[in-house]
């Protein structure tokens, strides 16, 4: 029943509003949760998505084909979030904005085999040990299902660095002895 992203994208580029609406509704939640984790600010998160989609509509004729719509949207939203944070923090340097990103990932976002308070605390502490970038990469890789190459492009780092960052995060989780509680079904 559902149209593919490609079909919706092509129709949207030709100006079909119902297809644009469908794209918006299909991705809204994911983009909102991602923006919220990046900015910690619901108002900014909403504005970012709003501005991103307005921009898309106004420039639809100039946008080319996309190979991965999800990647395109996440990247657009990420860039918008950084710009908004820079405005809010009134800093000159975008590097300072990167440092301010927390990107909290909480145990209740994960599927666990053991949901006791004790295990949740252990997982929470283990996640705190990771850098915000590691948490963001884990979110993009395992929640959003981007591939390593896309994540590399998003952060302007190389593929091997992405793999290493994920690996080191997993090492921390193994050392905290919490890997066994993850429920991969």
């Amino acid at each position: 029943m559902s149209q593919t992203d490609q079909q919706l994208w092509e129709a949207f580029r030709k100006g079909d509003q119902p297809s644009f609406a469908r794209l918006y509704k299909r991705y809204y939640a994911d983009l909102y949760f991602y923006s919220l984790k990046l900015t910690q600010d619901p108002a900014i998160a909403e504005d970012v998505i709003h501005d991103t989609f307005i921009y898309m509509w106004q420039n639809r004729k100039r946008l080319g084909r996309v190979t991965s719509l999800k990647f395109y949207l996440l990247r657009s939203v990420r860039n918008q979030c950084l710009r908004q944070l820079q405005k809010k923090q009134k800093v000159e340097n975008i590097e300072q904005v990167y440092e301010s990103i927390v990107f909290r990932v909480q145990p209740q976002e994960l599927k666990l085999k053991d949901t006791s308070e004790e295990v949740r605390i252990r997982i929470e502490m283990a996640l705190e040990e990771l850098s915000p970038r590691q948490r963001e990469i884990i979110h993009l890789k395992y929640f959003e299902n981007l591939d390593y190459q896309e994540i590399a492009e998003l952060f302007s780092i190389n593929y091997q660095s992405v793999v290493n960052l994920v690996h080191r995060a997993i090492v921390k989780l193994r050392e905290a002895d919490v890997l066994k509680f993850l429920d991969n079904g």
Partner: protein
Amino acid sequence: MDYEYEMNVNKTIHDLIADPTFISWVQKSGGARDNYWEEWAQASPENAALAEEASAMVRGIPFREQRLPEETVDAKWRTLLNDLPATPPPARKEYVALLNPWHVAAAITFLALTAGLAYWALRPAYVEYQTGNGERLEIALPDGSSLTLNANSHLGFHLPFDRGDAREVDLRGEALLEIKTLPDQRPFRVRTSDLTVEVLGTTFNVHSRRATSVVSLISGRVQLRSSRGDTLTITPGQSAWFDAARNDFTVDTGDAVSRCAWVEQRWVFEEPVPFATVLEQVSDLYGLSWELSDPALLEKELEGDISIESKQVLLNSLSLALDVEIIETGESEIFIKEKD
């Protein structure tokens, strides 16, 4: 190749996660090297740790699904729709690119009249939208109301929108309207060839083709007025039209929602409906003209839900539901016959 699979070869995380035989072992899909990996993982504590880490990377960190309520997302969409600049339709090769109607100071343009999506603005400012075959357009009105215009339909209104004692639009064809109640209670009117529909704030569908307008109410209150001045107020769930032959209104209760299903790309027939009626709707939607191998086919009946996502989907659904063969004999012609 085989050297890689000896016991003492040092492996890195990069080697493991890129190795299809390792992935196969992790996913327990019965690969040829499963025994090798089993042994390798137990060969030393370092291997065991690396195997566990690489397995975790392959299997992934399991996240729960996160959702927002549909109504919330729908509301966000509506806010966005209001802020989208009123847009000219996609420029087709035959047409001249057009102007944003809200720039009232802009020059006049015009457009040739043929099938297809077109839009033009005339000074002092009467805005018009026209849809073609299979096209739907969501339109945001200046007062914050919105509507979805169905295929082969026409909507027009004056600017400024808040002049006079009421907000008014002219409609030919079909539209589902969601009208905002204004603080000053100014009514909203839809004018068709045979009716004026007046509302305060509400969601309703107007189907106006072949000189008869059917109004279906989802929520709120509307009043219908015929060109003669007869009036009728309907309540949610009801559909009504002015029957010129009887010179009176006719009301249908309970089918309002089905009549609006087209907005969600479906037709809903709660009671069996003759194929002839369905063909009329197909024609309204896609501009198709049809021919039958046998007029008796018109008596076939259709009931239930039909998807109208595209011409193809619709024709396929119809041929399945009615057990007929539908052949496209031209750009907008179909031929219908019994299945052999």
